[in-house]
């Protein structure tokens, strides 16, 4: 899933300076799971803002709602009418959601309420770790299900760099060296041959940004 973290309260409040009618729109998919921009967090932010503006003596209107998925037009169409009455919409979705919202509400001001960080998983409650860089050329089948592009700080392909030490990364001693993990797991699997070959340089040309794809069935539409 996509992992995000809410922007600091003061930053959000500062972005809203001068607006009298604010809508906060949450997203109940990824950012809800990582407790950054789901229904609960939207409610919390809205209350915080109301209290803070009230304390300042300003009568800013803060309203809120949360859609199932902000990156999907069908779900967004359910709330678009409602948003028209507001000067600004704070999107609590990932960067993709913020952009679809801005496309659909142009020329309305849309502001991001979270910082989108990575594609990751949840090793334990309240913890998320990056596990995929969406590189478009997956090597997990050869590397024992551990991604060297993501888990290695340098994203290198032919084994550990000289900075690895006792299985840890030179960038952060609390982080594991991806290549030490890969080597150990392949050893257990009896498949070290997988990584004895020399991996060629990555094909960055397969994915220029912004990437896009169309399902076979929808081609030509």
């Amino acid at each position: 899933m996509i992992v995000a973290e809410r922007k600091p309260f003061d930053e959000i409040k500062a972005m809203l300076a001068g607006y009298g009618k604010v809508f906060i729109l949450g997203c109940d998919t990824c950012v809800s799971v990582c407790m950054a921009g789901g229904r609960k967090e939207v409610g919390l932010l809205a209350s915080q803002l109301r209290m803070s503006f009230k304390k300042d003596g300003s009568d800013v209107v803060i309203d809120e709602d949360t859609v199932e998925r902000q990156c999907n037009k069908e779900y967004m169409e359910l709330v678009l009418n409602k948003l028209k009455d507001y000067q600004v919409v704070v999107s609590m979705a990932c960067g993709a959601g913020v952009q679809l919202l801005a496309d659909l509400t142009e020329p309305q001001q849309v502001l991001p309420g979270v910082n989108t960080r990575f594609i990751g998983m949840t090793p334990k409650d309240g913890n998320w770790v990056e596990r995929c860089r969406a590189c478009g050329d997956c090597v997990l089948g050869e590397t024992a299900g551990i991604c060297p592009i993501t888990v290695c700080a340098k994203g290198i392909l032919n084994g550990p760099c000289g900075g690895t030490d006792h299985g840890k990364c030179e960038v952060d001693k609390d982080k594991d060296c991806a290549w030490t993990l890969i080597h150990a797991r392949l050893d257990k699997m009896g498949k070290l041959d997988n990584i004895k070959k020399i991996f060629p340089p990555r094909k960055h040309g397969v994915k220029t940004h912004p990437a896009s794809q169309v399902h076979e069935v929808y081609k030509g539409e």
Partner: protein
Amino acid sequence: MAASFKDTLKSGEFIVTAEVGPPKGTDIGEMKQHIELLKDKVHGINMTDNQSSVMRLSSLVGCHIIKELGGVPILQMTGRDRNRMALQSDLISAAVLGIDTVLCLTGDHMTLGDHKDAKPVHDLESVQILKAVRTLESGKDLGGNPLKGAPSFCAGAVVTPEADPIAPQLLKFEKKIRAGAEFFQTQAVYDLDNFKRFMDYAAKFEVKILAGIVLLVSAGMAKFMNKNVAGIFVPDALVREMESVAKKEQLQKGIEIAGRMIRTLKEQSIGHGVHIMAIGKEAVIPEILQVAGLL
């Protein structure tokens, strides 16, 4: 004229190389002094490439100056700051300048240095840079396009004999050899018994291995490296030896230890030579060589 590094590797001599760090800034006075001091005493001088992710004069220009002063340059190239376009461009540029020996490295991570917010490149790592060198020699670039004039290099790489765990390190070492490495300069070694074990394993490969000798300038430095530097292990006995003298005499003790290790390696034919890294204290390298009996 000094022998090319490739010829030195073939000569069977005990090989000595030393590292010189380029300055951060345009004042190359001290760097030139170090080159002048070393050029006739060692077989090759490595010029580091934004070492430790600290921005400096480029290794290519540093190597050009070594060449101008009559030394044998070893161009260090990491993949941290340049993508495959820039690396290949610098490689053919080096060849045009007569710089024909290159040491291929992955490079320390950007966050370890003095430009922590810079974007790290890592388009190619050490093995792939070695392959790039060999590809250019074949008259083509990594895009498969023909070159108008192909370079010819003596290519080397790095290995860490003290790595723990050692198996992933050795897997990569063997890949580097398959990718075309002709020589290795190792990370610092202090435990010569361990280095001998590594050499016993490495003897089956047709490559020259120069033991990394990092000058200990103080007991504190030895302890610091043991705690903080990947792949470096200074045995307790050496730490105690450094501590056995007053602080102001510890540099001298470090010179004595480095010289003694080199002498032992040579006398016992462990490895094929040494690569001396006297980080910031290049001026004392001749003294180390004297203690080692090489001057």
